[in-house]
């Protein structure tokens, strides 16, 4: 089976801080460290498991981004993917899901993948749009928020479960070629092996400049950032760690929770 996994390089969300500008509009401070999008690790792992189950196949991993984004392809190759494709953008600016989907579609169309896997969203933009947009561009059946994939009785189909609200799962069968976006929890991503990581360092990547690809149609502009609204009183306890603990215990007692 020929599988394509779409991955994204994102900043480490835990290390991002919000700075208040004198203008009143907040800004983000990104420490400069980038890594594989958390949700995409599960897509890579699932592709590797499918390939192992079938004892044959090929996994390509693709990403869109500036020069630094090529680094994000190493970990998937370390986990078991065969090759990396870097669609290189000329600047750091996020081109948005519509452009990313159109470029990946252009690259994927002639390669005739049987299955395309994506994470359910990226940690930075939190859009969850590239997968469904890519499916539409390639005219593939698709399902999002997939939490289980098993072979179906018909070898051209996959049995899947997708999460819907309230702990309920929808059970579907989908005909390949198809596109799925995966939820964390579908598997436990493995650590890349050292030998494979070393191979990933030696192995060249296929690089395609996005300037050579057709520009996307629809676009969304980000006009700025705003601080999230506080929905509650948000009283901040101050003092030493012990003082805060004592104060919190007093509050719990006052409110009759003890």
């Amino acid at each position, binding site marked *: 089976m020929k599988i394509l996994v779409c991955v994204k390089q994102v900043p480490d*969300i*835990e290390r*991002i801080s*919000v700075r208040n500008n004198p203008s009143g509009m907040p800004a*983000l401070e990104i420490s400069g460290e980038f890594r594989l999008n958390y949700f995409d690790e599960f897509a890579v792992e699932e592709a590797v498991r499918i390939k192992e189950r079938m004892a044959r196949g090929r996994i390509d991993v693709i990403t869109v981004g500036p020069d630094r984004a090529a680094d994000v392809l190493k970990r998937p190759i370390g986990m078991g993917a065969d090759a990396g494709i870097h669609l290189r953008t000329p600047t750091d600016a996020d081109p948005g899901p519509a452009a990313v*989907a159109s470029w990946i579609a252009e690259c994927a169309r002639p390669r005739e993948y049987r299955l395309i896997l994506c994470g359910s969203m990226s*940690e930075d933009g*939190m*859009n*969850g*749009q*590239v997968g*469904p*947009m890519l499916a*539409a561009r390639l005219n593939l*059946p*698709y*399902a*999002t*928020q997939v939490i289980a994939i098993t072979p179906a009785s018909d070898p051209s189909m996959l049995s899947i*479960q997708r*999460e*819907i*609200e*309230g*702990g309920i799962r929808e*059970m*579907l*069968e*989908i005909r390949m070629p*198809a596109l799925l976006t995966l939820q964390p*929890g579908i598997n*436990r991503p493995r650590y890349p092996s050292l030998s494979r990581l070393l191979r990933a360092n030696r192995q060249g990547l296929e690089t395609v400049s996005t300037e050579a690809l057709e520009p996307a*149609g*629809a*676009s*969304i*502009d980000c*006009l*700025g*950032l*705003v*601080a*999230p609204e*506080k*929905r*509650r009183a948000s*009283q*901040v*306890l101050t003092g030493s*760690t012990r003082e805060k*603990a*004592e104060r*919190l*215990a007093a509050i*719990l*007692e006052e*409110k009759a*929770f*003890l």
Partner: protein
Amino acid sequence: MTESVDIMVIGICTDGRVHPETYDLIAFGRRLQAFRPGTLGVCILGQDVGAAAREVAHQGSVQVTAIECPGLSHYVSEPYGAVLAEEIAAAKPVFVCTAHTSQGWEWTPAVAARIGAGCICGVDGLTESQGRICFQKDVYGGKIKGLFASNTATTIISVQPGVFKFTPAPGASSGCVIRKNATCRSERTRYLGTSRAKADVSDITAAPILVAVGSGIGNQENIKLAHRLAGCLPKAAVAGTRIICDRGWLGYSRQVGVSGATVAPALYIACGISGASQHVMGMRGAGCVIAINSDPHAPIFNEADICIVEDITRFIPLIQDACVRRINNKDPRSGVPGSPREE
């Protein structure tokens, strides 16, 4: 009455039952009209949607287009999206609004790509900036919100459920229903029904106090800290975020959030939880929220009554000691609370 609308709300109904999000979307559409005057209509599609369409027309005082699709008794991305893409392309609304649920979030990007519309998912606010209508949504794990505007003639938006509240306009006239028929086939995707994720062995929705843990707990061993804290508090149970359940540190029956349980305890202690919108949607109804997190920018603090910036692995033992002392002072005969309570 004209069939064309500037703001098209996609109503949601299952087995003939109208989902409440449909009315929230009408409320959102009315807010949108304040920024972009124009007509608002609702579109509902599926099998046997006539009664649902009449109900929405009456309750919402709106024009409803009921698209009868024999065979589409359940939502399936491909046929549902194909019918909607055709309807939207023909009607050419400026905005199409649907709920940011597993269903809405699935079809909106695909339909947008098919018809060349802009797409903004997970919207929870509306404003005007630089002369343009801007839609607000979470980015970077909810630490901050972005303001987004579209450049396209049609923009499709999925709106967070429960943010915009519908109130019927007094003396509003009843709406009307326009009927249409569509054929749809689901040749490549087969719907086989639903199942519950896991057997429900705990009922965190019934507990008056929840000690909920997120990735800030660090490792599986530290889950004991949460059990110890819960042991100090009467009838408290331990719950967790999705990532904790995905790692197998707690069972999925203890997951709070969109894909888990929706809870409304009297007290919710969020330990090491960042506060992503998917989690917050499940605990927003709590009476009192205490958030403990080492990251002062964690979005959970916007949802908390009391905020404590601390590493929970250091803080929980101290709060447990302080609670035990207070309990013993109240009633020295009581046992030693706070022993691990593996439920």
